[in-house]
């Protein structure tokens, strides 16, 4: 069996065990959740280390036929596009379990849902079968709604649950229509993504059908990723969600839509993708500029971070819209980096919220001396959020800019403004209001994070951001061959020559200049 299967099975096993235990075994339940997600994380790290960057196709593949009449099979594997996402997802899942100590009621149900959500997320990214790819995403989505509804916070909880449920269900539905249409159009009787991609590159789907199917995928997946103007569910939803749910959704599950665009929509519908890039590039400015501006006006820290998270998705869209090797690589880099970052910020704000009982920035102030550890990590996370070098986000964003520059120079410059200036303004204003300034007397009893699990999760997430920020080749070399394939597939026919793969590999060695 492939390591991937074990990565997916452990949390599932955990969910089953928790379900079998009586609800009063609180310690055992929590331990099981922590242990299974931890093992799954370690396995994901091993998988990442064992991944061979020089191979272009999927690795660690396992394929078990399921419904042969329809061509559905359990088919998992990793290539450059999902190896980093799987690693990120597994790490975030473990830290989300660590941060779940805030849950006091209905522990058993909570942890079952958390573990199911984890299984769903990781499986969705690992699946190379279109059916399971979609199925596992839905499997992860449903616990999200329930968790926000039951364990959420704030007065807007019910409203937010409604809103997020409607938006995401519609998004998923649109995407489903698109996916089924593709299945029907190819007529290949297989859900195997690799196989479909191969078939389509030999015999493309008709241009007209592509033109009809693509918008379903674009907007279906787009809604899942809070593509402007379908973004308003996100800040509200995250503000209402329990910490772990916000971490898992904003960090990992949300990337499903982006992953779907890169993995399915673009390679299978390349002609339509080319027609729609202009629209996508314009919409991404809605995310970057508009949501950035909205973030500037927020007084609630959670809404600020929620809007900033929406804004960051714009960089991924821009990278995808460029349809170039550099842009797509950058997009995947931003997805991974943002996953760590979103998880980290939501974990920190969750901690803050539990300590202070409020996330209204006007009521906070001068907190840094009281909580030096959490404060310092939070400031670093916010600086990472405004694209500071040293953190993985910078690498991703700057790569996207380089990739998009040749295709959309004006839009790239506007995005640059969003990244460097608007991002800087709202992040620094938040630091100024919450952490700097004279200490208020209101929070004298505030305690810093002392629990080793809490500290461990902050350190893991921040450490990942720094590691990939300092050594981006750990990711970029793995992503490149896969991104190269996609870029070659979507390149206009006459110039479709897979030359890039050869040349980019050949110049890996540093040049010594005298």
């Amino acid at each position: 069996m492939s390591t991937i299967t074990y990565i997916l099975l452990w949390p599932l096993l955990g969910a089953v065990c928790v379900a079998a235990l009586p609800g009063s075994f609180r310690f055992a339940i929590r331990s099981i959740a922590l242990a299974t997600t931890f093992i799954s994380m370690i396995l994901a790290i091993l998988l990442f280390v064992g991944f061979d960057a020089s191979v272009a196709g999927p690795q660690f593949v396992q394929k078990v036929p399921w419904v042969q009449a329809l061509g559905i099979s359990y088919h998992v594997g990793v290539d450059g596009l999902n190896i980093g996402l799987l690693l990120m997802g597994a790490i975030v899942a473990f830290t989300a379990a660590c941060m779940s100590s805030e849950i006091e009621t209905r522990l058993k149900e909570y942890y079952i849902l958390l573990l199911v959500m984890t299984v769903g997320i990781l499986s969705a990214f690992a699946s190379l079968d279109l059916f399971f790819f979609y199925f596992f995403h839905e499997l992860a989505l449903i616990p999200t709604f329930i968790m926000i509804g039951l364990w959420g916070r704030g007065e807007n909880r019910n409203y937010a649950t409604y809103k997020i449920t409607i938006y995401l269900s519609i998004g998923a539905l649109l995407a489903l229509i698109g996916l089924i249409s593709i299945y029907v159009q190819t007529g290949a009787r297989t859900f195997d993504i690799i196989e479909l991609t191969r078939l389509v590159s030999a015999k493309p789907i008709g241009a007209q059908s592509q033109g009809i199917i693509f918008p379903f995928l674009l907007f279906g997946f787009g809604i899942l990723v809070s593509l402007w103007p379908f973004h308003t569910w996100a800040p509200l939803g995250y503000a209402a969600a329990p910490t772990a749910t916000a971490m898992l959704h904003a960090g990992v599950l949300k990337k499903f839509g982006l992953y779907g665009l890169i993995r399915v929509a673009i390679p299978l519908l390349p002609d339509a993708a080319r027609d729609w890039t202009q629209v996508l590039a314009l919409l991404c400015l809605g995310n970057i500029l508009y949501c950035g501006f909205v973030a500037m006006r927020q007084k609630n820290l959670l809404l600020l971070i929620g809007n900033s998270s929406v804004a960051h998705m714009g960089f991924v869209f821009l990278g995808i819209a460029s349809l170039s090797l550099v842009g797509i690589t950058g997009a995947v880099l931003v997805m991974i980096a943002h996953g760590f970052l979103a998880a980290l910020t939501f974990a920190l704000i969750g901690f803050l919220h539990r300590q202070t009982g409020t996330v209204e920035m006007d009521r906070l102030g001068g907190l840094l001396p009281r909580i030096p550890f959490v404060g310092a990590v939070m400031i670093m996370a916010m600086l990472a959020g405004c694209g500071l070098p040293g953190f993985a986000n910078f690498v991703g964003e700057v790569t996207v800019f380089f990739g998009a520059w040749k295709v959309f120079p004006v839009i790239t410059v506007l995005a640059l403004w969003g990244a460097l200036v608007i991002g800087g303004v709202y992040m620094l204003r938040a630091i100024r209001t919450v952490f700097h300034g004279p200490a208020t007397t209101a929070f004298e009893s505030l305690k810093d994070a002392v629990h080793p699990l809490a500290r461990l999760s902050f350190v893991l997430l921040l450490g990942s951001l720094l590691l990939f920020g300092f050594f981006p080749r750990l990711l970029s070399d793995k992503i490149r061959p896969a991104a190269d394939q996609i870029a070659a597939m979507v390149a206009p026919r006459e110039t479709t020559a897979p030359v890039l793969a050869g040349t980019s590999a050949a110049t890996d060695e540093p040049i010594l200049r005298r």
Partner: protein
Amino acid sequence: MSYAFPWFVLFLPLFAAVGIVLFTLKNRNVSATISIAAIVGGFFLTLLFLVNHGWTPGRNEVNWLWMVVGDLRIEFGLRLDPLSLLMLLVVTGVGGAIHIYSRGYMHDDPNAGRYFASLSLFTFSMLGVVLSTNFVQMFIFWELVGVSSYLLIGFWYARPSAADACKKAFLTNRLGDFGFLWGILMVWGALGSVNFVELEATLKANPVALGSLATAAGLLVFCGALGKSAQFPLHVWLPDAMEGPTPVSALIHAATMVAAGVYMLCRVFFIFNGPALEVIAWIGGFTALIAALMATRQDDIKRILAYSTLSQLGYMVMAVGLQGTVPAMYHLTTHAAFKAMLFLGAGSVIHAMHHEQNIWKMGGLRERMPITYRTFLLGTLALCGVPPFSGFFSKDEVLTQAFEHNPVLFAIATLVAMLTTFYMFRLVFVAFRGGHRADAASHAHESPGVMTWPLMFLAIPTVFAGFWGIETLLAHQFGGAAVHASGSMLDHLFSPFNHAPASAFLGLGAVGIGFLLAQRLYANAETDPLPEKLGWVSEFVRDRFYLDELYAILIRITHDALAQVSDALDRWVVSGFLVKGTHGSVELLGRGLRLLQTGSLQTYALMFAVGVAALLYFLLGGAQ
């Protein structure tokens, strides 16, 4: 082996910063020692490297591949040539003295551990800028310099003024960085490389390779320098940055960070074409003039020095614009030493005066603080450009460059020289001479050795750097003969007068006039006589021409207004038809919306689906 030295020079401060944060944050003395050891170690390693390999080592670039994707190749490397090695010495030498001084200055601060960690992080970033082999690497360290200065300016973040100042500094720098990165993208897009050596070779082979973008690319790259070197119109952050501890001002706002912009201009000088250089020269000259004017009306000892720094940076930028990279770098080097010394002297005064910074509350410090006074006077003489101090030679080269290329800028530069002497001697007369104007001044006493020794160390380059042949070294780097023939020390001293007598004598004359004016107005003055004589002009200059206020209005009617509009749209339009009324302020709309709020999920879903369908219809229609 010794090729590894520069790597150590670069990374020792980073290790120091990380080590302090992880292990010794609570222990002030150990933290200080680690931080000092890292930078002083770097200074000696640089010297050793120079002894082994000279100023032009055989291998002038060492690279390690940082990231490669398609046609984007980003390396992480070390550039080793006279320009970067000279800057290494400046950063580690002057910086080292400031680190040692900080140990005394910050001795009583409970957070000194954090201070030294930030200081080491800053040193690492600055060394990174100096050693960068390509644009992206430089941009990375460029941003890191920005953030470490943010941490240092905001060191006393509990004070609202410091918290605001660090935010302002970072955001103003970000504006410059926006242009810088834009310029980098443009250069990469047109020439396909970000490496300095490759770019220079490309442009040498084909000077019009950038085509119609040449001027734009040059000016955008220059934006980076506008921010870091605080040139008009992005100069506003530097005076506010004086909210940081004084040694920080010496390190960041005199010797290193602000010099990064000028260094970058010299490093990528090959990229600028005629029109771009013209703009650069005028911006530099204009900054030099307005900053010198503002400096004459300040009462805070650190702010006077801050405006003086702005003005001197304007000189350097102007020199670059007039194709004088040698004078610019020469003045940068000497200025780093004497301005750092002046700031440290000011710090010594502030320390003795229990954090009083108003010069009109000082007076008579000459007797109370002899070492500080003498070094401060040496620094002042060097800054004014009095022979034989180092500032005389470097400033003379700048003036000569202006004299030969642009008479109007030469006139401005000479006027600035006069103003410089005027405000510096105003400071000296008011703070150090005359009687004690306040109690604190009469009780002040000399600072401890850990603070005075760095002052005396920095006095060496202040006095003698003019005789060390820095200009010959730089001329070698930039190709071209040294302006002054080297001979005996006496020959060297008189060479400016032989070589370009007009500019030298005019410059000296300006210094003389400035001194006489200052002496007439401020020797033994109890209050400032100028406000009465000049009336509103004085106020206008004191309040920095109201530029800060103008910017505040500009930001409010543009950026903040856009944010307000977006937010309103988001609240009422984009999420409008699903808005359930968020609390009281929403009531009005909420009433109208009540009709839509049936509470039934199906209705909402239907409405939403209809909306999506309509949108899709329009988008599809538009796409075909």
